[in-house]
């Protein structure tokens, strides 16, 4: 007697998502809960956490944004192994504007986000035609080159970096600024990826040649996707510059490339929400393991391997499936 597992949508999912006739509070809650949970969480968490964990929350949000930026690029078919490039360029943009020209952080951060996005797009424009692993290798190498160029030419403070940046007015502004950006990016870009525009981007990932034969200029769309991802990454860099009040060579460190990828892989690539979830799991975990020092990176490596091999869909897709569907064993017909 052979059995197989059958997955069926829950009745409440069918009623609430397809028919659009919300009959009860329960159905409304079923639809609203997954959206309300992160919103309420992001707004309430800063109030209930202590000073130390508030700092952790800041880096959670920053890594979640970096992971979202990675995921947008990956959904357009460009897998980046160097998010540190976006982070570092944004950090140096706002650092230079603040250090040499004395501009206010509330001006430098948005300007650096746009400028960083433009610079990253221009830097990667020559390799826009590359596909798959070749593009990844270019993104892996550019941050390494930039670090060494800064070291060799001693521009922008060289190995010392620039310190004494103006901090943001208060820690509440810091926290709620980054939370607002995170929520806007998460929901806004999720919506964007569901629109026709996002469909073109996903189409480039699935089959770029057929997108070309539909008469669409994929290079223009790839460049736009790069600009979006670059701007998000640069915002993170610019923001962290003013939080740490320092910018230097560590902004191009491997951490900023590895952790976002790990977050997206653990959480589940292709949804943006998965990337955010991954960051909310990995960063606090790594803080809890701070006592182990270098072992944290060992753990990231192991996590990456285990999730890619055992659960390649990621945690978010797993939870989503359990939420929308139930499973049962049925007999296989002869």
């Amino acid at each position: 007697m052979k059995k197989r597992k059958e997955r069926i949508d829950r009745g409440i999912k069918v009623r609430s998502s397809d028919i659009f006739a919300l009959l009860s509070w329960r159905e409304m809650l079923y639809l609203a809960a997954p959206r309300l949970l992160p919103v309420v969480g992001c707004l309430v968490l800063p109030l209930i956490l202590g000073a130390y964990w508030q700092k952790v929350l800041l880096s959670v949000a920053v890594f979640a944004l970096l992971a979202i930026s990675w995921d947008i690029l990956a959904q357009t078919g460009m897998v980046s192994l160097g998010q540190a490039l976006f982070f570092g360029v944004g950090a140096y943009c706002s650092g230079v504007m603040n250090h040499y020209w004395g501009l206010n952080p509330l001006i430098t951060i948005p300007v650096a986000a746009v400028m960083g996005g433009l610079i990253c797009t221009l830097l990667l424009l020559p390799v826009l035609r590359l596909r798959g692993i070749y593009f990844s290798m270019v993104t892996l190498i550019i941050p390494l080159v930039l670090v060494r160029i800064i070291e060799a030419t001693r521009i922008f403070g060289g190995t010392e970096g620039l310190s004494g940046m103006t901090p943001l007015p208060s820690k509440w502004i810091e926290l709620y600024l980054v939370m607002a950006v995170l929520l806007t990016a998460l929901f806004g870009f999720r919506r964007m990826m569901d629109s026709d525009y996002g469909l073109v981007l996903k189409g480039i990932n699935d089959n770029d040649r057929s997108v070309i034969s539909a008469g669409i200029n994929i290079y223009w769309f790839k460049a736009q996707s790069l600009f979006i991802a670059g701007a998000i990454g640069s915002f993170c860099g610019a923001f962290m510059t003013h939080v740490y009040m320092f910018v230097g060579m560590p902004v191009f460190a491997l951490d900023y490339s590895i952790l976002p990828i790990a977050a997206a892989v653990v959480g589940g690539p292709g949804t943006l929400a998965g990337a955010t979830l991954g960051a909310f799991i990995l960063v606090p975990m790594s803080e809890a393991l701070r006592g182990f020092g270098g072992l944290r990176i060992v753990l990231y490596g192991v996590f990456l391997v285990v999730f890619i091999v055992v659960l390649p869909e990621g945690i978010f897709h797993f939870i989503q499936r359990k939420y929308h569907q139930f499973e049962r064993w049925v007999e296989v017909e002869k």
Partner: protein
Amino acid sequence: MLIGTTLYALINAAILALMAIGFNLTFGISGVANFAYGAFYVLSAYGIWGMLNLLHFHYLIAVIIAVFANVILGALIYRFVLLRVRGQALSEVIATFGIGLAILELFSYFGWVGFEYNLPVFLDRSFIIAGTYVDFQRIAIVGFSAILIFGLWWFAHHTATGLAFRGIAQDERTALTFGIDSDWIATLSVSFGAGLAAVAALFIIPLGSISPGEGYDVLIRALAVCIIGGLGSTGGVIAASFIVGFAERFTDTYIGSHWTMIVSLAAILLVLTVKPSGLFGKQKELEERI
């Protein structure tokens, strides 16, 4: 000065070729990504060091054990990790890079860094060639890497296994119809590459000392040689080693040691931008760009 620099550039090219040869066998010739290559290199170096200094084994026995341990480890990693993500190039890269990261960071957590972590040279003697001191180890490297490159070319072009290696990189399905067990060949390719990493460590480590950072360095330089030369081309390995080797040594002497790494990284970027399959690469020209 010029002659000495040229001589050392030649030796540097030989070192690069020796470093890259295992990676080239795995990634270049049979198309299986093993980005834990640098970690294998460091792992075998620490293995030999431990067997010599902690367990007091005979040198030859320690070397043989280390090479075989690497071969087996390579096969295990293929069976338990790579096999499950085979064909998805980026998952292969991320998974193996994760393994490499874990191994290297584990060693740096132990903090085994310093001059006492070193392997013995084969023969402690030096010669004067054209007015420059050259020690025996470096001459051995030049000779051995010439032999290995010729061996690699012969293996990839004139043995059934070597042809199978190239076959699975060019078209796995067609290779299957010719009776090539692609999983077995890919296992062999990863484990031979890992074994060659141990051999490279054995020759090159005595010139410096063992450190976990060396692992990333070896990976990047092997990648540079592989990409610049072109995947699947033995002549490309030689040409790329010479280009990178000479460029590194001459920038080191005439411009400054800060620029050494920038030159090889910039060379990778330039080649990837202009001709992603490398100077001599013939495979996958349709897949590299659109």
